[in-house]
């Protein structure tokens, strides 16, 4: 394998050739969405230019090509996640949020009843909270939260107490605010000991380090195309095939049936029963290309590279601003990804982001769809910086220059 070369990766991202306000774009918002390599864009445009047809059933050449692209995307994604039976274990959805809704409503309604416990954590994205609250309102399940320690780690001190009798632990692999990476193997082992299944939100982690559902020993996992160098409009639910097989359909319509009559319908078998309507075909082709590219780059190599970038940024932010820019997240470099939520002294995150924009620096202010976590740390918002495999140390230089400007303006 060729050594990881971030400059080469950067050269494959057309957007990074752009300027805004007469400055190059410095993209530090990969936790919100990753940028798209040309080869992913080409994979999607090739579908539209050469093979645009609907999938399944039709026998003409372009329709067979479209089906091959869609199902090929499914196999590529399965391979990327370590699935042993991708054709039976990968469900494509609109995004990660829809995948959570699918799992909560399909698996949840079939397997949970009043009083059953689902355990989440305080560092979850709203996508892994709200569908469970909706289910609670509908069937009366109980939702418990693992807390977060003062040093931004998952608090496991009450783990056994919370998991006692629980049916499911649904938890993020990596916090989209703190950057904290959770110990999935340990969590899974301990949750399984209580008979609970484990669903992992890999939206934030999938593009930044190795994901292997067999190695993690999880039961289900969700991620989203657009945070993995792929397109928007496609999400992924992986679940062990026996779990999926026992789940009822989610959305109803074309494609998900075996038979329909005036008396009712019989759902299709396999993953098809969860994919009602015309699926995201171009997106599956694009996501397939994206995960092939990620595998070529090497997920270990990406993780090592981004750890270097993150450690360097943490050290330099501390050195440059001596406490005026605080990181809301672990700073010891251990088990954390390239997400740095900043609290800039005396400057509201919106104002930080506004000043940075003038330098071409793209960051994200706000609560990052994690309000329980923000409340835990008494924050309304943070200014979040996040890296991708195309990020460079020189991006951090511009970040620091622009943060100095923000502090000066509001100081």
């Amino acid at each position: 394998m060729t050594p990881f070369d971030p400059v080469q990766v950067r050269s494959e991202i057309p957007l990074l050739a752009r300027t805004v306000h007469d400055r190059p774009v410095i993209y530090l918002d990969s936790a919100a969405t990753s940028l798209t390599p040309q080869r992913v864009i080409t994979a999607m445009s090739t579908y539209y230019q050469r093979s645009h047809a609907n999938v399944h059933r039709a026998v003409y050449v372009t329709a067979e090509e479209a089906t091959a692209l869609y199902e090929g995307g499914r196999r590529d994604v399965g391979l990327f996640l370590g699935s042993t039976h991708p054709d039976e274990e990968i469900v494509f959805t609109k995004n990660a949020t829809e995948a959570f809704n699918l799992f909560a409503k399909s698996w949840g309604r079939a397997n949970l009843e009043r009083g059953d416990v689902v355990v989440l954590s305080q560092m979850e994205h709203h996508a892994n909270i709200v569908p469970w609250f909706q289910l609670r309102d509908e069937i009366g399940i109980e939702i418990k939260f693992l807390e977060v320690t003062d040093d931004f780690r998952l608090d496991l001190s009450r783990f056994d107490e919370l998991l006692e009798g629980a049916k499911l632990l649904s938890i993020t692999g990596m916090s989209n605010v703190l950057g904290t990476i959770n110990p999935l193997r340990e969590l899974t082992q301990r949750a399984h000991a209580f008979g609970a299944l484990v669903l992992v939100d890999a939206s934030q982690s999938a593009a930044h380090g190795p994901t292997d559902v067999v190695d993690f020993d999880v039961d289900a996992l969700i991620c989203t195309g657009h945070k993995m160098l792929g397109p928007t409009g496609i999400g992924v639910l992986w679940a062990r095939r026996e779990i999926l097989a026992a789940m009822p359909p989610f959305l109803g319509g074309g494609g998900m049936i075996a038979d329909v009559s005036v008396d009712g319908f019989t759902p299709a078998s396999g993953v098809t029963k969860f994919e009602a309507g015309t699926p995201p075909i171009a997106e599956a082709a694009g996501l397939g290309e994206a995960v092939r590219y990620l595998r070529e780059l090497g997920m270990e190599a990406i993780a090592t590279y981004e750890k270097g970038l993150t450690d360097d940024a943490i050290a330099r932010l501390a050195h440059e601003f001596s406490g005026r820019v605080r990181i809301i997240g672990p700073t010891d470099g251990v088990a954390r990804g390239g997400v740095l939520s900043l609290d800039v002294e005396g400057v509201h995150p919106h104002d930080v982001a506004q000043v940075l924009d003038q330098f071409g620096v793209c960051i994200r202010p706000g609560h990052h769809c994690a309000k329980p976590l923000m409340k835990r740390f008494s924050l309304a918002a943070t200014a979040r910086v996040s890296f991708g495999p195309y990020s460079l140390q020189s991006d951090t230089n511009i970040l620091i220059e622009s943060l100095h400007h923000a502090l000066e303006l509001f100081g």
Partner: protein
Amino acid sequence: MSNLDDLYREIILDHYRSPRNRGELATPPACRAEGFNPLCGDEITVFIQVENDVLVDIKISGHGCSISQSSASLMSAAVKGKTLDQVHQAIATFKQLMTVHEANIDDPEPVAVDIRALGELAALQGVVKFPVRIKCAILAWNTLDQGLQDFVS
């Protein structure tokens, strides 16, 4: 940085650093109204005391960005001691100032507003060049408007 200077005028930074009429009023006799910006988490509470159709006192609490906080501070200074008619007029004028015509979205110009009538509030007109921030500027005004409606009913 000319664009930034348009947004962060010195008057705005001054009101952000030293907000006027900050605090709370006892309710009753005062009324309170709360405003939220769910997208960015900004929260504002406006306390108003009305006597004989005059807004005799106003206090503001909460937190938010420099635009929402300075707009609230400027608003409090502009409406305190004014008749309710004048306050309604000020709200209407300010909302008009924040109106962006879609046809001009690339180069938004404020619609014809008597800038002199706005006094220091005119410092906020640069906000319309940053459409995302208009909701920040207008939060306090909508909250005051709500408070006045609650007072009447």
